[in-house]
């Protein structure tokens, strides 16, 4: 018996140990989930965390330019609780539940990994907790199910592949006989390549696939892959590598003349372009997963954001940082719209959701429209350009912008079908 007692006591103690005090009326508690450890921390997680910290601080200090001048969300100060996104889906689901039910946050903003987004979405629905995905790319989330409590304020990865295809077609004036791919061997890499290949086949009929390399995620050594791609002599090489893998790929492919031999597209190249300025030759197609960083429009919001960020962290914000800012501002917009509809009183979650659906709001990256995924999935314009070193500083030249509806499927149409049917509106 004594044993059973001990155990139960131990367990209940353990269960309540980390419990935080219940959330007061104000301020608003926001759970922010992003990678703080592991390989995805440096390119996405940490810049996103930094952006979140800036936004929260500036919003509470009412230092954000119009239309976001109001304190916090509709006057209520923000309080953010940070969680690491590392670990398997089980861990992430556990932590999400802890945020929602133990720490009683008012909403959760986060998730870089598509796998985590897919795992968390149904839980958010079960717990009726407003959840905003800021970065993860997979189109599957709103294609496979429809959610009430889940929103995504960034475009899906489909946009990157379609945009890239449109851009190289223009760049090479249609003279593309063969394409090759080097993508990481996991969902993101596979999906990116599938979409790009399909788009190219639509845009330049008869194009050949020379080779599609899928090295293991974080393999780090790409000599063999580079050899095959060099040997394939493709006109265009597509890669959705990110972070360490992307940088290693650039460092290893450069000296081997891959960039000279083929037109290389790096759909997330923007995260590496400043760090590796002297290693990226001119003419490499650089993507930023949307109108972020160098492609961000020149409006006041953007000038303010990039300056504040650069002043504090010494580097310009990358697209992950932009997407985080976009997610927070989008939620703020929805919240305040709902609040004014509610006669100035704090809106209920359902009211915020009602306001969020089909919302159009301004972000440092310009106009964001929550028009697909039944009003829960954002579409934005996107832009591509080629690298150009100007006085030792990396810039993008020959920039082309593509309106949102041109690079995103219409509501209710699966990305794959949309591409397969020749991008019909």
């Amino acid at each position: 018996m004594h044993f059973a007692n001990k155990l139960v006591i131990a367990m209940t103690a353990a269960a309540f140990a980390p419990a935080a005090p219940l959330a007061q009326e104000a301020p608003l508690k926001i759970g922010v989930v992003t990678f703080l450890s592991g390989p995805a921390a440096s390119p996405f997680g940490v810049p996103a965390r930094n952006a979140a910290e800036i936004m929260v601080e500036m919003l509470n200090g009412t230092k954000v330019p119009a239309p976001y001048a109001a304190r916090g969300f509709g006057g209520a100060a923000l309080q953010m609780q940070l969680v690491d996104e590392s670990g398997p889906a089980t861990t992430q689901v556990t932590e999400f539940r802890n945020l929602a039910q133990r720490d009683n946050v008012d909403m959760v903003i986060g998730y870089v990994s598509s796998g985590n987004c897919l795992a968390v979405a149904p839980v958010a629905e079960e717990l009726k907790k407003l959840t905003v995905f800021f970065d993860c790319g997979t189109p599957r989330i709103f294609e496979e199910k429809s959610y009430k409590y889940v929103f995504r304020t960034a475009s899906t990865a489909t946009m990157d592949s379609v945009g890239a295809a449109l851009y190289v077609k223009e760049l090479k004036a249609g003279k593309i006989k063969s394409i090759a791919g080097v993508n990481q061997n996991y969902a993101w890499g596979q999906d990116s390549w599938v979409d790009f290949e399909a788009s190219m086949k639509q845009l330049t009929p008869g194009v050949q696939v020379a080779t599609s390399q899928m090295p293991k995620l974080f393999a780090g050594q790409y000599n063999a892959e580079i050899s095959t791609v060099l040997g394939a002599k493709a006109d265009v090489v597509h890669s959705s590598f990110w972070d360490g893998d992307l940088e290693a790929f650039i460092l290893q492919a450069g000296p081997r003349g891959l960039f000279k031999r083929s037109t290389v597209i790096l759909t997330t190249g923007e995260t590496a372009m400043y760090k590796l300025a002297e290693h990226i030759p001119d003419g490499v197609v650089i993507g930023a997963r949307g109108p972020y960083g160098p492609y961000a429009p020149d409006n006041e919001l953007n000038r303010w954001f990039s300056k504040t960020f650069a002043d504090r962290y010494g580097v310009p914000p990358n697209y992950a940082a932009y997407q985080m800012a976009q997610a927070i501002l989008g939620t703020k917009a929805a919240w305040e719209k709902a609040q004014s509809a509610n006669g100035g009183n704090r809106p209920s979650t359902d009211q915020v959701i009602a306001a969020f659906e089909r919302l159009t709001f301004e972000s440092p990256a310009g106009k964001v429209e929550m028009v697909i995924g039944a009003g829960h999935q954002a579409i934005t314009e996107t832009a591509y350009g080629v690298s150009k070193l100007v006085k030792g500083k990396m810039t993008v030249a020959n920039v082309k912008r593509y309106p949102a509806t041109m690079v995103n499927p219409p509501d209710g149409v699966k990305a794959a079908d949309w591409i397969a049917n020749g991008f019909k509106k």
Partner: protein
Amino acid sequence: MEQLLAVLIDGIIYSSWLFIAAVGLTLIYGVMKIVNVTHGSFYALGAYAAASITGALLAKGMPPSLSYAVLLGSALLVSVIVAPLIERGILRFMYAKDEVVILLITYALFLILEDVIKMIWGVNPYFIAEPYGLLGSFDVLDLTYPYYNLILVGVAIACGAGLAWMLGSTRTGKLLVAVIHDTEVSRAMGINVDRMYLYTFTFGSLLAAIGGAFTAPTVSVVPALGVEVIVLSFAVVVIGGLGSLPGAALGAVMVGLVRSAAIHYLPQAELFVIYLVMAMVLAFRPRGLFSIAEARKI
């Protein structure tokens, strides 16, 4: 034909990298019977030290030609500082425990070191690409390879030959061999096994650090760099036979060639081909290719 040549060259380059990364593991296991997970940490430490130190010196205007020496030096630096700390500070109190428990201890240490590294170097990547491009490159048919890859091969051969020489011809080496064969008897014969353990752990870790240091110029040094290396070098070492130096070499070459062949001819298989080889080898040679079958006296 050209492709076959490419397969060979890519395979050899990758094998060299694997060998440098893995050989320390087999040494440590041979002598101490520890499956050492911190091996990955030392690989990462080597890479970080090399990247940051070389980068700093280059910024200070050091002639790039010296950077290769600096790579080596920084690997030496971290391993002689950290390895003894871990061996004397923690591991030596654990030798009485099960092989598995010690493995877990090194796993715990690995987790801790991951965060320590993050605390020291932060999460932002480090680069020192200069040594990679510096020597220019050579062409094989119409494939271009930087000469640096040959340096990698050279380092691998140097590590292997050096280790073989040390075990075969130096006094310490001979003592080590004795310990490898029978720790208890060696102890009885008055060999200072504890010191041997210290040397072995430091030297084995140094090899891992060298692996990291000489990889640094070709990659971006980021958190969790070591994770991949752990399982990979386990596979290599197990295929060759734990504790066997020629085994590690053969294992590295096998894995390297098979992998590059897969990439050239069957890209889909790349993901698990290494483990396939490992499973196959173990299925037919349960203790790896170069194993010392232990007889039991009854």
